[in-house]
């Protein structure tokens, strides 16, 4: 496989595409949003349970390419236990990573496993795939809190 292509489709990404983590609906979610990429028709739903400003649980469902599915899977993995503010900060950093704004030798410590998405910056057409889940998470957190019905 070409090295640029291998950088985009790292084993971790192929693995998360095949067995996505937290792929379910959270019935007790108090924040949720639907994300849609009109360019490719991909849809994603993000569900969050936020208590005392902390993401207690997060999950996703939807259809998309390997990049968008792996990105959603890794995002849910990374955000569990983070504060809302930390989640938003990580989104900014992730977005900078995939759009190449962190430069050639970025410090990837904070990004942890998300560093596998560094290859996306060479594929401008795929930035939207990698960021769809994050945009949707952002929009969910900025919506009014959902009143959970007990019925």
């Amino acid at each position: 496989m070409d090295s640029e292509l291998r950088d985009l489709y790292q084993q971790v990404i192929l693995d998360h595409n095949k067995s996505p983590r937290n792929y379910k609906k959270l019935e007790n979610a108090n924040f949720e949003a639907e994300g849609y990429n009109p360019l490719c028709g991909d849809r994603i739903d993000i569900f969050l349970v936020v208590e005392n400003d902390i993401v207690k649980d997060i999950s996703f469902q939807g259809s998309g390419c390997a990049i968008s599915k792996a990105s959603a899977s890794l995002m849910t993995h990374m955000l569990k236990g983070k504060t809302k503010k930390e989640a938003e900060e990580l989104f900014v950093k992730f977005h900078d990573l995939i759009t190449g704004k962190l430069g050639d030798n970025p410090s990837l410590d904070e990004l942890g496993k998300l560093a596998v998405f560094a290859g996306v910056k060479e594929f401008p057409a795929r930035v939207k795939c990698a960021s769809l889940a994050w945009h949707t998470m952002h929009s969910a957190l900025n919506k009014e809190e959902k009143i959970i019905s007990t019925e």
Partner: protein
Amino acid sequence: MKSGIINKTIYDVDKIRKDFPILESMIHGKPLCYLDNAATTQKPKSVIDSDVNYYTHLNANIHRGVHFLSEAATKAYEDARTKIQKFINASSEKEIIFTKGTTESINLVAQTLGRSILKEGDEIIISTMEHHSNIVPWQLIASEKKAKIKVIPITDNGDLILDEYKKLLSQRTKIVSIVYVSNSLGTINDVETIISLAHEQNVPVLLDAAQAVNHLPVDVQKLDCDFLAFSGHKLYGPTGIGVLYGKSHYLELMPPYQGGGDMISKVTFKETTFNTIPYKFEAGTSNIAGTIGLGVAMDYVNAIGIDNIAAYEHELLEYATEELLKISGLRIIGQSDHKCSLISFILNNIHPHDVGTFLDFEGIAIRTGHHCTQPLMDRFGVPATSRASFSLYNTKQEVDILAAGIKKVIEVFK
């Protein structure tokens, strides 16, 4: 069109490929395998040279100047109109209107004919397999006029259900606007039947022929369609130039589309008299170089012969269908018995965008996504497909490269 009738002595694909400079390109270190012809076709050198020649030797504004260059440019521009008239066998060059492309041609009819005849409760018939450009222009005028859009359903194979169409046709039907060849499925629709049924009710029919004129011989008088829209860039011509054919009695009745220069015969601040057809619909300085280039593209297609092209492409389609169906986990979306040379497919558990990116690294250009036919994707319950579309310069070797590329993608995602 059966493969047996190809005249092998005329159809020399190696020679044809040499006419298209871009086909020599290397992409990611591999020879370009261009299979995205339904999006746009590549241009022969004669069309590219025509552009350079126009701006080098002929550039002037048309229809207005009395000087040498203006007259020469006007002649070249009007010669192109005549070439197109002959290409689709229109009865007069007055019935050929130049537009930006298929989309503008359809919008022109919706905004002029649609605006003048539609009333509240009237109906426009389209089909499930329309491109967004044959849906949205009708939605815009329908919502303004409180008219309704009725949609002909399709079978799982991707054929229009004509019995349902018959049920939709009524006194309320004012326009039928149908795609001739589907850009997503490849289906060649039975437009003759659609037109004759509409004409029994005196309803005009527009054909979106964007994917038809480059694959089939199109004769507007034989078809008896009232309007026909197509783009130059899918027919080996430049981008930004398209055609609207309309029967002259409709064009005479229709109000102008845009106002400006060239579409008038007399202007005062009190009133304006419009120019005759086709000029009434060509406001402003048009894409002169593009129009002349489209004429050159017609010459190119005519020299090979559209019947020869159709037969050759049909052979490619049959070969490609056979080879792709050998791949386990591949499903073809669109399996009509009447298809032009394109194949939409999906792979088990592999998204078309991933397929597209991997094939790109093999030098293969295909289209992935919804192909501007979202309602059709919904009909088949898929978000997107991968589409390989073949043209007069593609080869069986390229089909093999595609099949090998797909197998590689499946291997990676196993």
